[in-house]
């Protein structure tokens, strides 16, 4: 082995404290980035997941001006012929008023979003039925599922209670109907129907006098990465209709935009953390160099060139970077596995969508490795400035 590499290794491993400190600095830098990724990217992806699962599917179809008047069955059949499509379901929504008498007291709530669903297809295309924590999802023409917040606002509506619902039909007439509460919906993270009432889509069509009309179609795919393809295929197939087709991301762009810049900022903080660990390496290596002043002088006296000294200390930077990147990545992945296995949730409610982004993992490891080498440049350069006469010094 080259004596410079041997010396670099020995000097470092004989200074366990310095080695440990430097490796720890790199490790923490990497860990911060991994933890940030798990939490904030996980949160972002969880929100996208919930929007997709509860509200938009992978592709959502609406009509540019009005309601979709194609029949449910024909559109569903059209979509389900595409192999990558798992299911499609129609939805219709409007604003409503509700009132309920509880313990002899009448409580009235206005401007409540009322969503009509097709119970058979909805459970195939959306997981929103899983958020029904008490009772069951809409199953008959006069059953209603209340979002937990609506139930609370109505004075504590429970399964079995009766609610009066008012909607304005297409002719401007009030239409009132009594429903029985069959379930309460409460989604972790609140992206579900927590602020809505959910009824059978045909009941809502009746009340609104909109027979055969649909507000939107949620299309669920087996593979989200095909969303754009399906969307474009759909638009090409119906060129003469005023359909709008959007992927989850397109449909929720407004909701996600702020979040995106938040993540960018969190990433910045992570990179600042990495910079801080680079400074820690500079400090630790300066200490190493200062502690070896005389020995560096001895090496120079017996013939080591400036370049040789430079190589020794830069190699130390590489060792620190390599071990740090290894330990840091292992720790980061450990945290990620832990988050995934324990189904870690944000704020104790919204389960994070934990993914392994290998590109980012490798990029982070590589970057901290390179940063450690860059950090070692200055101490290494200082070491080369030490003169051979240092060996002669008697104090």
């Amino acid at each position: 082995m080259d004596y410079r590499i041997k010396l670099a290794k020995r000097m470092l491993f004989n200074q366990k404290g310095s080695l440990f400190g430097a490796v720890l600095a790199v490790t923490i830098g990497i860990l911060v980035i991994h933890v940030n990724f798990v939490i904030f990217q996980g949160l972002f992806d969880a929100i996208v997941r919930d929007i997709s699962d509860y509200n938009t599917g992978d592709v959502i179809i609406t009509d540019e001006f009005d309601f979709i008047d194609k029949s449910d069955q024909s559109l569903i059949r059209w979509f389900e012929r595409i192999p990558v499509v798992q299911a499609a379901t129609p939805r219709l929504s409007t604003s409503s008023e509700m009132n309920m008498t509880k313990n002899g007291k009448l409580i009235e709530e206005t401007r409540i979003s009322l969503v009509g669903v097709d119970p058979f297809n909805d459970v195939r295309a959306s997981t929103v039925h899983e958020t029904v924590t008490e009772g069951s999802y809409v199953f008959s023409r006069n059953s209603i599922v209340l979002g937990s917040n609506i139930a609370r606002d109505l004075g504590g509506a429970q399964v079995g209670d009766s609610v009066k619902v008012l909607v304005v039909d297409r002719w401007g007439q009030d239409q009132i109907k009594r429903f029985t509460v069959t379930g309460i919906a409460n989604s972790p993270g609140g992206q579900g129907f927590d602020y809505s009432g959910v009824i059978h889509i045909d009941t809502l069509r009746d009340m609104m006098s909109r027979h055969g009309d649909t507000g939107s179609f949620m299309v669920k795919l087996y593979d989200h990465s095909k969303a754009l393809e399906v969307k474009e295929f759909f638009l090409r197939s119906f060129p003469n209709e005023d359909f709008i087709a959007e992927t989850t991301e397109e449909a929720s762009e407004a909701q996600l935009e702020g979040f995106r810049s938040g993540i960018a900022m969190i990433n910045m903080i992570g990179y600042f953390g990495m910079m801080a660990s680079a400074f820690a390496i500079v400090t630790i290596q300066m200490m190493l160099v200062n502690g070896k002043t005389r020995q560096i002088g001895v090496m120079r006296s017996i013939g080591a060139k400036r370049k040789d000294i430079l190589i020794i200390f830069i190699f130390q930077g590489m060792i620190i970077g390599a071990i740090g990147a290894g330990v840091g990545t292992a720790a980061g992945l450990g945290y990620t596995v832990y988050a995934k296995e324990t189904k870690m949730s944000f704020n104790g409610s919204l389960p994070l969508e934990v993914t392994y982004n290998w590109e980012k993992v490798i990029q982070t490891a590589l970057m901290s490795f390179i940063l450690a080498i860059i950090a070692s440049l200055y101490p290494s350069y200082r070491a080369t400035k030490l003169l051979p006469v240092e060996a002669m010094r008697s104090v």
Partner: protein
Amino acid sequence: MSSVLEINNMSKIYGEADNRVKALDDVSFSIKQGEFVLIVGSSGSGKSTLLNMIGLLDHPTKGKISIDGIDTTTLNDDKISSFRNKKLGFIFQFSNLLTDLSVLENVLLPLQIGGNNTGEKDAMDLLKAVGLEDQIYKRANKISGGQAQRVAIARGLINKPSIVLADEPTGNLDSVTSATIVQLMKSMAKKLNQTFIIVTHDREHFGNVDRVITIKDGKAFEGDMPSEMEITV
């Protein structure tokens, strides 16, 4: 016999203006191959400065140093490093050794710095000659001061240098150990016909040597210093 070292009109001035110290003042002498030379003189007289110049560890302000007939004043830093590696051996007063390496690795280091990865047998032979054959795998910070100086002697000899330079090699040792180190250097010099230039305060321990150069106020004089000077040391 040819001369391994030739010094012509060499001066060394440290500092500037008010802080100016003339550490060496127009020194000239030459040393022949195989000579065992002591450099003596009172503290601050300029002995270490002289040895630094001969060892090419620092540049003279004026004058010329030739080693093995090569004028060293014109060499650049890398050439000087190679030159030190091939032509000179060093024994310092303190902390001679790299504490991260073993005794054997320390002795091999000058060879490896010179790009030669063989020579283990030569190193073993030298370590045997200095009486450390049973310590070769010990880490260099786990041996005594006297043993460290023996290792330094072996390391100083491994490249078969033209000159071995030592600055107070016994300055840090007790008197009994000093005497054995002195005897070791003298016997190695004789055995290998090796030139030694040794700065020392320990004149008595060395007894008879080939040559003594006394430094006084930066000037070099042939022979032992007068006894009245020793009192001031």
